[in-house]
């Protein structure tokens, strides 16, 4: 694996009940880069992200991560609908850090930093499940950030949010990227893909049809499916 590669998917395939949901998917995620995976519903985007994060084992191929043991690249994942524990905002952050094996003082320091950074300090004592959708997703992002990942995986993180909340999340993601964190995300929001993507993977029916720099993808998509997708055609 090359020096700045954090994650490499090698010929990933996944089958369920005899149906191939992913076929021969290979790509690399390099340090500090922002990769957007686009494609219609059912293309296999969310499944691919879960396989990359180790939540689902692929039927074929493998996912290789940089480093080993304590030097392994750290990953975190943010879901479309974040699941919050039935605890306060602060306790949700603390719990995530406890699972990383951090000591009490370290957890406290990181909790405070996360609350401060994401503007959650006034909500620290509130029940996390009582927050609005935008606030919960901000907390999900704070929870992921607090674990100091080298790579952050996001599955349609703003699909249920209003424009103001979306803007806050996107600003945070750009800041993460500026700080050197690699991002891999899926979205159906093409504007968001343009704003955040440096590279684009276009996935259709479980196969990668294009892997290309974002400007090239949006200006001159190669495949008929990608052209149709960008044009908003109902091809599927």
């Amino acid at each position, binding site marked *: 694996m090359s020096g700045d590669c954090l994650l490499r998917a090698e010929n990933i395939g996944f089958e369920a009940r005899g149906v191939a949901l992913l076929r021969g998917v290979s790509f690399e995620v390099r340090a500090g880069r922002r990769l957007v995976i686009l494609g219609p519903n059912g293309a296999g985007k969310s499944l691919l992200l*879960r396989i990359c*994060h180790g*939540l689902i084992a692929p039927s074929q191929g493998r996912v290789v991560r940089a480093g080993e043991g304590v030097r392994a690249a750290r990953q*975190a*994942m943010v*879901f479309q609908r*974040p*699941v919050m*524990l*039935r*605890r*306060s905002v602060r306790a949700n952050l603390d*719990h*995530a850090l406890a*699972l*990383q094996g951090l000591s009490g003082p370290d957890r406290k320091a990181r909790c405070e930093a996360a609350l401060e950074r994401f503007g959650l300090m006034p909500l620290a004592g509130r*029940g*996390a*499940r*009582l927050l609005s959708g935008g606030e919960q997703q901000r907390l999900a992002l704070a*929870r992921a950030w607090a*674990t100091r990942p080298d790579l952050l995986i996001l599955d349609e993180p703003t699909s249920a949010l209003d424009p103001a909340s979306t803007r806050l999340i996107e600003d945070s993601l750009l800041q993460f990227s500026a700080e050197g964190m690699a991002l891999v995300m899926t979205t159906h929001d093409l504007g968001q893909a343009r704003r955040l993507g440096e590279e684009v993977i276009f996935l259709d029916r479980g196969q990668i049809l294009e892997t290309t720099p974002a400007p090239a993808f949006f200006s001159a998509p190669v495949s008929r499916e990608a052209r149709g997708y960008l044009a908003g055609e109902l091809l599927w």
Partner: protein
Amino acid sequence: MSDTAIITAFSLIAEADPALVQVIGLSLRVSLSAIVLACLIALPLGAALALSRFPGRGGVIVICNALMGLPPVVAGLLIYLLLSRSGPLGSLELLFTPAAMIAAQTVLVVPIILSLTRSMIEELWGEYEEQLRSLGSGRLRAVPTLLWDGRVGLLTGILAGFGRASAEVGAVLIVGGNIAGHTRTMTTAITLETNRGNLAMAVALGIILLSIVLGLNALAFGLTQWSRRRMG
């Protein structure tokens, strides 16, 4: 006659009649001990059953659920057979002691707490699994998280268990023997005093028993409401 009994019952309660207090104290000690024991057994077992997969798991769940309706006299009989002189645990000489009553009530309550824990943890795991695994938690490490997050529902189940333990009469009668000052609980005392025609004492004990069950349920309801308001 019944009016007199009720008035006398209230005066027994107001005066904190020593016989009454002794019976209530023993009943609470036995039932609370049984609940603590049952929790120590049923909470981890319920969580393990919720998170593990093995052949025959469905059958185990069905048996646990069915045992929630275990007739108290059957539980009492089982403990009696175990603790009687010719039984496998006869040498412990526990029959007709509060320890035997605790064992009987524990047998009655374990299936209730276990089944409720299993069902609640399974539901919570379904909701939390992806998130917890994404944070690096496996099934085993998730158990304390799930038990804590299900605490309000579990508490309700534990209180239901306490209600069953403190209200049952058959099992403690068989293994305790209803010995005055030694193994006489509220329920066995109510049975005895009613048969004797001492309705005042029976009514007084009934009022106390009902108050305890009502108080506990009010507490469970209040805690549930408070928790929902505070944590969602």
